[in-house]
């Protein structure tokens, strides 16, 4: 076995040990440390935004800037694709 393979095995075992330990240290599902923001959104989203879908109220109201950035990314992607492929049509 060459030195490269030994180094690769040692490296991957170190990474695997880190992953296993960090997965053992994770919180159980559904019980995070800080629950202030979740409780606030769950209790107030329907009254404040009027939408039954709390995810949409977060995406379009509380985090509207994020959606604006996503829409800008899509616009830029379309503009770039048309810019690249327009020359080929003639």
């Amino acid at each position, binding site marked *: 076995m060459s030195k490269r393979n030994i180094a690769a095995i040692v490296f991957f075992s170190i990474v695997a040990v880190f992953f296993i330990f960090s997965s053992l240290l994770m919180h159980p599902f559904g019980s995070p440390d800080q629950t202030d923001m979740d409780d606030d959104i769950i209790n107030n989203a329907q009254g404040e935004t*009027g939408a039954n879908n709390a995810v949409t109220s977060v*995406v379009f*109201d509380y985090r509207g800037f994020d*959606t604006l950035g*996503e*829409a800008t990314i899509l616009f830029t992607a*379309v503009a770039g694709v048309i810019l690249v*492929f327009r020359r080929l049509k003639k």
Partner: protein
Amino acid sequence: MNGMSRIVKTIASIIFPFITIYGLYVIAHGHLTPGGGFQGGAVVASGCAMILVAYGSVWTMGKIKEKNLSLFESLGAICFILLAFLGLGFGAVFFNNFLVGSDFLFGTIPATGSGLADINTGGVLPLMNFAVGLKVIVGLFVIVLVMAYASSVKEGKQ
């Protein structure tokens, strides 16, 4: 790329209205059910991409003007930003939900907790879903259409 066989064309044109209606339903009920503008727009755009694959890009490009597509996409983006600035004008801050609680469109506030859904709720969220949905439908379809058309023209020359 030329179109596929007659069987594929027939089945695609039968299925296409159902896909479109489902995607528009997901967009229109974005504030009530899972989904929204991005997801429903992706559904409708994949239906249009199915028509593009079945009928060929040259036929589709002959049916649609590219200028109209870019017009609609810009219209979606402008409507979205305009709604955000209307929040700045009528309310307090950028992206303020100024329609909620008013007697105008989409103004009803639902009771907190689970219950029957009312489509006349949500303030500006349905309007923003419509704007983003229009933008995603046309944007994704333009990407697929322009790439397919460019590759087909290149194949024809060789």
